[in-house]
């Protein structure tokens, strides 16, 4: 990461309507590199919609998204992902009939043998790379304490294990920006602490993340920069200390 922290992601005047409801109504914010940016706000503030627009799952009605200095507004999700913007889902999105290891292998970008022509070249063409990916996936599973589940169908995992798989799969995709939609939603406190520790380790390794999270204590521990949304707009940006002193934020949370 460069010393100059030019933002990795810049969202400018984003709008999105759903049948007359302005879910996102002129939101602008930036995500600096090498940190976790927390995206917080009351229910219905437009956080998930904003994240879906950045990930390419939704098209904005107006506004721009620029990533690493390039305009990426309204690109479809798979093209966002190929640029390194990888997102996780709030509800687990495992490939249920694939094993945990296969879930991870699928995520690897630029795989050999993933097109018909390359598949037709035969095993000798894609197998060496696949072996390397299997090793990488095993290292990830070891790191997340999931090695025992390697051959388990992802659909058979517990809710908490699915959250870990979601995160591992995102990492397997070589993200340059990881978008996390409530990564600890619905998990028990001890697993939530483990996930929090993993995220702290990842940011220590230089990964840039944008995380929607409701638990303010977690946000305070993990996030150096925080974006507060309410009613489709960004009402405050800064550190937790800045935000705590912002009357508009307090009002939004009290009313919201």
């Amino acid at each position: 990461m460069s010393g100059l922290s030019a933002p990795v992601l810049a969202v400018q005047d984003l709008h999105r309507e759903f049948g007359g409801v302005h879910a996102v109504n002129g939101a602008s914010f930036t995500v600096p590199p090498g940190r976790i940016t927390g995206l917080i706000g009351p229910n219905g503030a437009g956080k998930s919609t904003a994240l879906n627009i950045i990930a390419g799952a939704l098209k904005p009605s107006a506004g721009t998204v620029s990533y690493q200095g390039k305009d990426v507004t309204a690109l479809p999700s798979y093209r966002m992902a190929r640029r390194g913007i990888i997102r996780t889902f709030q509800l687990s999105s495992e490939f249920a009939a694939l094993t945990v290891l296969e879930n991870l292998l699928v995520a690897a970008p630029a795989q050999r043998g993933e097109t018909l022509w390359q598949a037709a070249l035969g095993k000798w063409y894609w197998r060496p790379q696949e072996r390397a990916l299997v090793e990488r996936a095993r290292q990830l599973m070891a790191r997340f304490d999931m090695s025992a589940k390697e051959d388990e169908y992802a659909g058979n995992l517990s809710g908490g294990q699915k959250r870990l798989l979601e995160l591992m799969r995102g990492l397997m995709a070589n993200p340059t920006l990881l978008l996390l939609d409530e990564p600890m939603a619905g998990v028990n406190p001890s697993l939530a602490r483990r996930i929090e520790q993993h995220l702290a380790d990842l940011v220590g390794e230089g990964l840039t993340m944008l995380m929607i999270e409701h638990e303010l204590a977690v946000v305070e521990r993990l996030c150096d920069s925080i974006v507060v949304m309410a009613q489709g707009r960004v009402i405050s940006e800064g550190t937790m200390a800045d935000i705590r002193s912002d009357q508009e934020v307090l009002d939004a949370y009290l009313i919201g």
Partner: protein
Amino acid sequence: MSVAWQFYISTVLIYLGVDVMACWGLNLQFGVAGLVNFAFIIFQAAGAYTAAVLTLGPAKPASQGGFQQYLGGAHWPFPLPILAAGLVGGLLAALVSGVTVRRLRSDYEAMVMLVVSLIATSVATNQIGLVNGPNGLALVPKPLATLVGLSPIGYQWLFVGITAAIAVCVYWLVHIVTSSPLGRTLRAVRDNEQAAAALGKNVTGLRMLAFILGGVIAGISGAVLVEFISAWSPGSWLYPETFVYFTAVIVGGAGNNLGVTVGALLVPVAFLEATRFLPQFGPAGLIDALQWIVVGVLALVFLWFWPRGVIPERRRRFPMAAKDEVPVRTGG
């Protein structure tokens, strides 16, 4: 073995070859990529008509003794009509998937496919000049029949060989898809489209690819069938025929090539083809009607009790780095 038995067995083997190929094609679409193609049979029909027309030669007007009308007749030598059938099946699949797979989610897609199937039957039946309407095409010359001086039973066995050779080629195509990273990615798309897209997979392109490959294979299977039975009419490809193949894939085990091979043996061959040789009983048409009922009940029973089929999709395991042969597969 008596000649009658040889005819019986060779005929069943050829039907088996056709049905196995079709089931592999449908499995690629439905079992692997999760595409609910309720119009599968029209791609087989498109291949059959293509091969028939390209074997029959140019249509003669009625004044010159021509008794069937169709577009674009030619005398292409074997195996070109079969290859062309695969091409036409694929092109039709590209056209249909360009509209449906691109735009619709699976349940709507299934409905649209059913409608497409009905429209296609209606067009082929009523547009007489296209493929001779309700009477269909007949007297399609058999491939290589004039080249080799074989006895009728010798020719039957030659055709078994031709069918087997084509089936091997089709299996190769299916195998390279299902055994490669491409197959894994298609299964991921099947399990969760949004998540696959969020990992950089071009979901629309992948689904269309599976659909087109299935269309190619369906077309080839239809071509082999028409070259064998020498005739093809709208009655051969009514929409319920699609459900026979779906039942075969579900019974055998969606997502498993060996499973659907067994399914093709159990459902279309054992229930539909082989029973044609059994003595009739009850009022005329009773056996035909019972076959449909049996197929329908079979699909329901399996979906209820054994949704993964006789031979379920395999669980792919990968050995540790020290060992060499990857990936070892065991039943899951």
